[in-house]
């Protein structure tokens, strides 16, 4: 019954979406009899999706094996938390999550948005429903999560062991909320073009949604990176895997959008560009979903390789993006040029930010699609970290240079002379750091050196916008910006330190033997078998010593059954200034009783994710500020002043 309830709710939700779309179309032609229905329909659609998703969760909770999806992705022996996570750890469930988030965003707009005029609001809801409708069709016609299985099996097949991790419980939903949250920006942008309302009011209405989606994306990417770091056991934290790129690209577009929408909101400039970014951001989100779900590019994330479903998502994605860009091409000409500004100004700084972010986005996009293009021309190529690192690092560093100065500039027009002491100061910090590293630590590459130098300068520069302000009267968004920029400095510091100063040792050890990595003396004390809920493992006990202190690490090599798979669980020892990372592997076949042990010392590596979380925290603070601001007064005042 529960499964049928879920399915019925899904059909009804689709009907609500259709109603909104039709209502929206009549609105365009100026009649609008159905218009009053759009808002309630959006709310009901959201509620129905909650019912549907909750039904699926319940089925996974009770492990109802008569449902095909549960039977093929769960198992009666599985720990409860992973049973629940199984709801979205598969194709159908994750698409249901996708569309549920989409509908809930629509409901939230209907409920909360009071700043834009009703016409644009209704158009936004109609566009949102139009997008949802395609994905409802996808679920109902080709990916029904509630399909029954006759006869029902007794045990269930299990879940990819790599995914049996607490990280999984939160990583995909977080990213999805971010991805789909950008649909709101998309809908707003299309609606504003259709109703010709591209201006500061529209930007102010859109901004919290972009900010919200962006926070989730930031957290999702940060968490995903950490998950890959400790779960995959390769010692890296970013692999430029197509699916990682698929999450990075919407983030880059959203970051650019976040900044340009501020310009539009405060200064009424960059109109067409902001619209463009809103469209690109969601197009990238859909592309990400497509890449994960079609298996078109080989990736550790491409779980459901199914060309038919891939074609369906591709068709949806192409339809929405093409229609949106068609509206853009035909309508944006009617959007008037925004307010002018000089190059040296806050706007100029944000334009620089946008340009650099867009270039990085283009580099990542080209690198991700290149293997596909090459294959079309008969070549087999995979594009890896060497390309991405080399191509993006210089642009990212330029972005940091722009960021040193940008936030302290005035709107519209400024003079660099006004900031000369700061400029000299930043230059001095960077130069001093760079030269010191270059002089005293041999063999460090140019990018790590520049990264460290610039991140230290930025760690100072980030706080400058607070100078001369009364802290208690400073608006929350300013604090948010400062913290986010500081977080970026922290994160880049971690990246540069990790890439410049990591030390690695790969060795075979018999119990009792030791190896050395950086300043650490690591002894393999013991190896013993351990048993988990649905796996067995060998566990190494490593004693790490440094400066008279002693720590124990226990890396595992796990053998899962149902389905059979081997994974390595890295053991991490976290110190304030870095992490000791240990992986153990099954011994050689013709073994002499030695175990392969791989050790890394990664200085300041935790700063990468800590910084990422700070960036998200900054976003959250800014969002709070935007949400609890008395809607009219400050914005109008600010606007009137310039």
């Amino acid at each position, binding site marked *: 019954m529960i499964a049928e309830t879920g399915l019925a709710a899904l059909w009804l939700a689709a009907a609500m979406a259709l109603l909104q779309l039709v209502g929206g179309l009549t609105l365009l032609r100026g009649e609008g009899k159905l218009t009053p229905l759009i808002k309630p329909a959006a709310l009901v659609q959201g509620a129905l999706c909650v019912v549907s998703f909750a039904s699926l969760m319940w089925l996974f909770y009770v492990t109802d094996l008569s449902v095909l999806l549960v039977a093929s992705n769960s198992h009666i022996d599985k720990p409860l938390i992973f049973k629940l996570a199984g709801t979205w750890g598969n194709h159908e469930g994750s698409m249901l999550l996708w569309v549920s988030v989409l509908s809930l965003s629509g409901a939230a707009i209907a409920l909360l948005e009071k700043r834009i005029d009703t016409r644009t609001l209704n158009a936004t809801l109609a566009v949102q429903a139009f997008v949802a409708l395609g994905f409802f069709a996808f679920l109902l016609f080709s990916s029904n999560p509630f399909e029954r299985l006759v006869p029902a099996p007794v045990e269930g097949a299990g879940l990819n062991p790599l995914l049996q991790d607490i990280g999984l419980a939160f990583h995909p939903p977080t990213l999805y909320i971010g991805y789909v949250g950008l649909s709101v920006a998309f809908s707003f942008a299309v609606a504003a073009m259709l109703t010709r309302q591209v201006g500061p009011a529209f930007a102010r209405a859109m901004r919290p949604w972009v900010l919200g989606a962006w926070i989730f994306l930031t957290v999702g990417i940060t968490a995903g990176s950490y998950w890959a770091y400790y779960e995959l056991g390769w010692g890296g934290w970013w692999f430029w895997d197509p699916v990682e790129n698929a999450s990075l690209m919407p983030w880059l577009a959203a970051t650019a959008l976040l900044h340009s929408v501020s310009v539009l909101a405060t200064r009424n400039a960059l109109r067409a560009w902001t619209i463009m970014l809103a469209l690109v951001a969601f197009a990238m989100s859909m592309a990400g979903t497509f890449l994960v779900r079609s298996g078109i590019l080989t990736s550790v994330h491409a779980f459901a390789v199914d060309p038919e479903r891939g*074609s369906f998502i591709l068709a949806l994605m192409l339809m929405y993006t093409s229609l949106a860009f068609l509206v853009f091409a035909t309508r944006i000409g009617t959007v008037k040029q925004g307010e002018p500004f000089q190059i040296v100004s806050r706007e100029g700084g944000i334009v620089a930010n946008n340009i650099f972010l867009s270039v990085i986005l283009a580099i990542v996009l080209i690198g991700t699609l290149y293997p*596909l293009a090459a294959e*079309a021309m008969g070549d087999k190529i995979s594009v890896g970290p060497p390309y991405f690192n080399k191509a993006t690092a210089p642009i990212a560093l330029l972005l940091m240079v722009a960021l040193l100065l940008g936030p302290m500039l005035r709107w519209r027009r400024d003079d660099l002379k006004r900031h000369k002491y700061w400029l000299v100061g930043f230059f001095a910090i960077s130069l001093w750091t760079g030269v010191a590293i270059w002089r005293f630590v041999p063999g460090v590459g140019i990018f790590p050196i520049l990264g460290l130098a610039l991140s230290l300068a930025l760690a100072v520069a980030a706080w400058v916008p607070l100078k001369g302000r009364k802290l208690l009267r400073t608006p929350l968004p300013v604090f948010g910006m400062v913290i986010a920029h500081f977080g970026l400095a922290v994160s880049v510091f971690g990246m540069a330190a990790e890439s410049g100063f990591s030390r690695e040792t790969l060795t075979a050890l018999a119990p009792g033997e030791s190896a050395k990595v950086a300043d650490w003396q690591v002894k393999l004390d013991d190896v013993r078998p351990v048993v988990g809920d649905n796996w067995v493992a060998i566990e190494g006990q490593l004693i790490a010593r440094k400066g008279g202190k002693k720590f124990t690490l226990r890396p595992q090599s796990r053998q899962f059954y149902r389905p059979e798979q081997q994974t390595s669980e890295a053991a991490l020892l976290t110190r304030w200034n870095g992490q000791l990372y240990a992986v153990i592997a099954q011994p050689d076949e013709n073994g002499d009783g030695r175990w392969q042990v791989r050790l890394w010392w990664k200085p300041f590596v935790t700063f990468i994710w800590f910084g990422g979380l700070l960036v998200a925290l900054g976003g959250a603070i800014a969002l709070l500020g935007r949400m609890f601001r008395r809607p009219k007064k400050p914005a109008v005042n600010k606007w009137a002043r310039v």
Partner: protein
Amino acid sequence: MNRPWLLWLPLAVVAFIGGLAIYGLVVPKDDMVHSAMVGRKLPEFALPPATVGIEGLSNRDLADGKPRLLNIFASWCIPCKAEAPYLDALKKSGAEIDAIAIRDKPEDVAAFLAEFGNPFRRIGSDSEMAVQLKLGSSGVPETYVVGGDGTILYQHIGDIRAEHVPMLLEKLREAQ
């Protein structure tokens, strides 16, 4: 806007990417990795015997003037078991076959040969897959046609089936 064509650029980009994606979905994927070594001399290697009673294999053993097949296999590989009868058929038709056993144990190789028969002249043991990688082989089983001078002439990826037997014999004859 003074450059209206610019406005259509995003749409064009979408169309291009869409075209690529459609191509990627529609055109069947060739998941095989073809060796870049075909047409070149065998790399230097000298592998220890894979099991008792059969000699190991070096690249010089393959460059003694007679064209041979070089089979890459493993006792733990199911398709290798499936192709065993056809290797046997090849041997009966006069082909000489050398082999490299990948990540294998002597007792497992012995058991494999006992069960499926031994079509091989020599078997080298490549416990670390080092030679396999040098040959440009990405999996088991694969079979190379090696000329009498030690040049790799042809790479057959996957198990040998009945229809491949005459083709491989023909390649060997051409190599004479």
